């Protein structure tokens, strides 16, 4: 298989398969999770401003009092790599083009030098997070194969994308193909691993905020 044949496959049938499994998985899992339902809370609610499901969905993005100092690497590393990923995924011109092609939505791209920097910073942050996972007793204790695997599945698309743009190691064509392939792997595993938190996070925060909002606790 030549590089271009490889690229053609990952752009064509490969992407179709990956997006298909991704959509199938996301809908399947969302129904599987949320169809379990929950019982109505019969106790009299206490209304407090700032305490609701929606409040928590947003507020939980900030560290609660005292926690930032307690675990700075988790918070700062987490912020940097999530924001970095967002910049790289949604700010890079070829990615926007892909999104426009799929959804019709588009927006101005960020300069590629900036996206490039963001990619490097993201990878650095992810590396630090990995080291933190190895070093911190609680994190290491909790870690299973899935944690290492999903780290790699998230890191590789950034790495291969960056290497493709920088023309490192392999010819652009081969690197671009590997980049798309790694994204496809990410798409396929996302609904079936902890990466699914990208979707359930909103539900979880909302439930937590809802239960506590009922009690007037602004969590």
């Amino acid at each position, binding site marked *: 298989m*030549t*590089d*271009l*044949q490889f*690229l*053609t496959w990952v*752009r*064509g049938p490969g*992407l*179709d*398969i990956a*997006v*298909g*499994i*991704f*959509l*199938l*998985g*996301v*809908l*399947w*899992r*969302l*129904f*599987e999770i949320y*169809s*379990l*339902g929950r019982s109505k809370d019969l106790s009299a609610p206490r209304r407090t401003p700032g305490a609701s499901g929606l409040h928590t969905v947003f507020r939980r993005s900030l560290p609660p009092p005292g926690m930032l100092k307690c675990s700075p690497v988790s918070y700062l590393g987490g912020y940097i790599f999530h924001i970095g990923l967002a910049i790289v995924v949604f700010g890079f*011109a*070829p*990615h926007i*083009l*892909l999104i426009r*092609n*799929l959804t019709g939505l588009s927006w*101005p*791209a*960020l*300069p*590629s*030098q900036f996206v490039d920097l963001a990619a490097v910073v993201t990878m650095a942050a992810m590396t630090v997070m990995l080291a933190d996972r190895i070093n911190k007793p609680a994190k290491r204790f909790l870690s299973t194969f899935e944690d290492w695997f999903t780290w790699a599945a998230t890191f590789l698309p950034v790495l291969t994308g960056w290497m493709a743009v920088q*023309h490192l190691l392999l*010819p*652009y*064509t081969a690197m*671009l193909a590997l980049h798309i392939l790694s994204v496809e792997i990410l798409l396929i595993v996302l609904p079936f691993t902890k990466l699914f938190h990208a979707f359930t996070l909103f539900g979880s925060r909302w439930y937590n905020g809802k239960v506590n909002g009922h009690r007037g606790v602004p969590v």
Partner: protein
Amino acid sequence: MQGSLVDAFARQGVSRRSFLKYCATLASMMALPPVAGRAMAEAMAAARRPSVIWLPFQECTGCTESITRSHSPTIEGMIFDMISLDYQETLMAAAGHQAEAARLNAMQDNAGKYLLIVDGSIPLGRDGAYSCIGGRSNVEMLKEAAQGAAAVVAVGSCAAFGGIPRANPNPTGAVSVSDIVKDKPIVNIPGCPPIPVVMTGVLAHYLTFGSLPELDAKGRPKAFFGETIHDRCYRRPFYDQGKFAKTFDDEGARNGWCLFELGCKGPVTHNACATAKWNGGTSWPVESGHGCLGCSEPDFWDAGGFYKALSLPADPLGIAGAAAVAGAAVGVGIGFANRAKQGAAKSAHETTTLADLEK
């Protein structure tokens, strides 16, 4: 025709200075150090003209057109006169049995020394019957001619990679030269057609240094195919700034912005168009406002559409809708099963008593 090159040039009215100037330009084009120009000139001045046999197979003659008329009548064209082109159907005066005899003679006289140039792909379907010359199939002729060749030059994407004849569904079973010839050095000069100076450059290299130039993994001379179109493109700064033409007649197109979104394959195409240009350095596809088609890469014809940007899927979301429906169906199915299970567990629950707290 025998004799040294420089004599032949002199007979053509080409001065020594013209020749030196040509060598300097060629060296620059091939990314050789400036001193190499002088070395080339000296070597070429003394070179004997090698015998060249040019076999055309499943082709359109575009490669021959390119090499003969591009810079005509400049020196690149002349260098073709300066080799002993013993067989070239399109250019040779002889025809029919005479032509075939010339080919066989040349092969015999220069056995092991002649340079074999091939353009066009080789059909293997129906025992090669799709393309025959004088009643003999292309594959048969290629094998025969390759046997006594010092090296093979596959000119054009068809000879190098199979090209358009090999595009899906490849009705003739077309293959490239390197699919058939395994025991000779092969230089691929892909392109549809290839850039003339690239073809003459390879010949010049062979003439001067008696060897083939350094090749990349796809058998292409690195001097010309080492960089992508994108890397050398004068519109590259616009790509880096995220300025793209969205249609062929918008503001971006008029401002000469990057054609990536209009399907330019420059980032994955290795060729020298951006530097060597076409028609005597007049222009090249991107400069004239059209994206690169990627013609010097294998299977460019089937690489997902000329006007579809590289980052786009070839067939956007063909099965996505079906997958979403299937996912929802699976999810709802599991949901019902889960609710049933949950309900069963609830109704099977017997009110616990103090005794139940013990195991």
